[in-house]
């Protein structure tokens, strides 16, 4: 593995994660995460040829159930924690360019 390309770019990754960082956070996190990423790179020394990935906490298969309607939260309850709402809908900033919000 090429050591240089294995490094973390905090500013870029935070954008992918939809997380705005202050200048201070960017600097601090870059230093801290460089250390953590360097630490976790030690797994690259393990020979894993022919080892399957462990995808979950135990071996499980899909469990199916009948597709029937069951009682669920009513609209008012489901909306009760909305930061902003209009009637029975969530209110959001304008999403589509040029549309009226």
């Amino acid at each position, binding site marked *: *593995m090429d050591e240089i*390309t*294995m490094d*973390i770019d*905090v500013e870029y*990754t*935070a954008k*992918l*994660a*939809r*997380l*705005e*960082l202050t200048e201070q*956070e960017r600097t*601090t*996190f870059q230093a*801290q*995460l460089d*250390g*953590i*990423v360097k*630490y*976790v*790179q*030690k*797994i*690259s020394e*393990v020979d*894993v040829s022919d*080892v*399957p*990935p*462990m*995808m*979950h*906490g*135990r071996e*499980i298969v*899909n*469990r199916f*159930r009948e597709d029937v309607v069951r009682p669920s*939260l009513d609209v008012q*309850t*489901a909306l*009760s*924690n*909305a*930061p*902003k709402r209009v009637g029975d809908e*969530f209110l*959001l*900033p*304008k*999403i589509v360019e040029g549309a009226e919000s």
Partner: protein
Amino acid sequence: MELYKLGIKAAREGLEKGDFTSAEIVESLYKRYNEVNPEIGAYLYFDIDHALELAKASPKAVPIAIKDLINVKGQPCTCASKILKGYLSPYDATVISNLKKNSFIPCGRVNMDEFAMGSSTENSALGVTRNPYDLTRVPGGSSGGSAAAVGGDMCIAALGSDTGGSIRQPASFCNCVGIKPSYGRVSRYGVTAFASSLDQVGPMTKSVEDAAVLLGALAGCDQMDGTTPEVPVPDYAKLLERASMKGVKIGVAKEYFDVTGLDPEVKRITDEALKKCEEAGAELVEVSLPHTEYAMAVYYIIAPAEASANLARFDGVRYGHRSSEAVDVYSLYTKSRAEGFGPEVKRRIIIGTFVLSSGYQDAYYTQALKVRTLIKRDFDEAFKKCDCLLTPCAPTPAFKFKELQDPLTMYLNDLFTIPSSLAGVCASAVPAGFTNNTKLPVGVQFICPGYEEGRLLSISKAFEDIC
């Protein structure tokens, strides 16, 4: 005797005999809360009216303190984060319904590291929790509020959650019994997700018997959580009646003892624990788990990866904090999340996003999943030679506030609890003694194969009896 001092067993006996009612226990706990919570800070929230209402509806129910990431209908569920300020749970988690079906009621919500990310409860955005054994020290974490409430006699018992050691390490720091059930043993429905392939809810109690009763109430198959299998739940409390160390094969793994950073007092207490078990008739067997040294690295790839996906749901749209600065969808996400999450949560989201991002996924995430298989195989091999493992629970006793400033140093606290979490097996923390000079509690960890909670509890009880 003050009712708040009781454990589950004694409380149930008194309730059965009619010595007192559930409401009287709640009143006693509330009095205790008012007296000591300003200092210890175990609770974030204690709604006396709601607790009394539940207690009056079930006069023989035992109140249980709930970690602040488990939904209880009508109550806040903040995960100790600013992003969930003002949130009220619209439904009960399955573990809460299960408690109610088994003569328990939720009573108060206890502090934690924000979204269960941390080992000292210092990452809570909502308050400080102090160790009841030494107020200058942390209670451990992430279930630090649960541990401080149990260790400080501020509850009868508590629910915690464990992803990489969040029940066991604080239990060790605060002199409690804690059980990390096997993956899938307890439903996660209604429990705020941190790392979905690792998270488990479990009991934190004043005795092993109490842990057995409480786990029995929590465990079982749930249609709302597809990872809970239809494996019957034995009567754990009944199994304890025959608890004995005689003939128990205890695995001793050098990977858990030859470790830099293992505090000499923790080592002494763990060595003495092994000796006591041997004197009581157990056989010590040398075992090896050769991939242990990679467990920390594997965990700090897999857990943040899963967390970054789980925490994507905090987008300021349906619930949780929304930034007032948001002008479009992009800034709605980035600003709401920036304002709502604390530094440790941000760090983990960034690491998780990084190890899953294009170009890095194979080298980090997929490689980690493969090494996780090897870690699991280590346990499978070890359990061919022994009934359980006995290890230190945490490398040190409770440390002081702000003592561990560097995130990576803090992560190393979970050195001994992470491998069993990755393997999906069950483990306990059981009080084993106190350090000589500082008089701080230290627990040891027992680890058993998956779905062998009955064996785990029996061995833990036998140890408690000789300790």
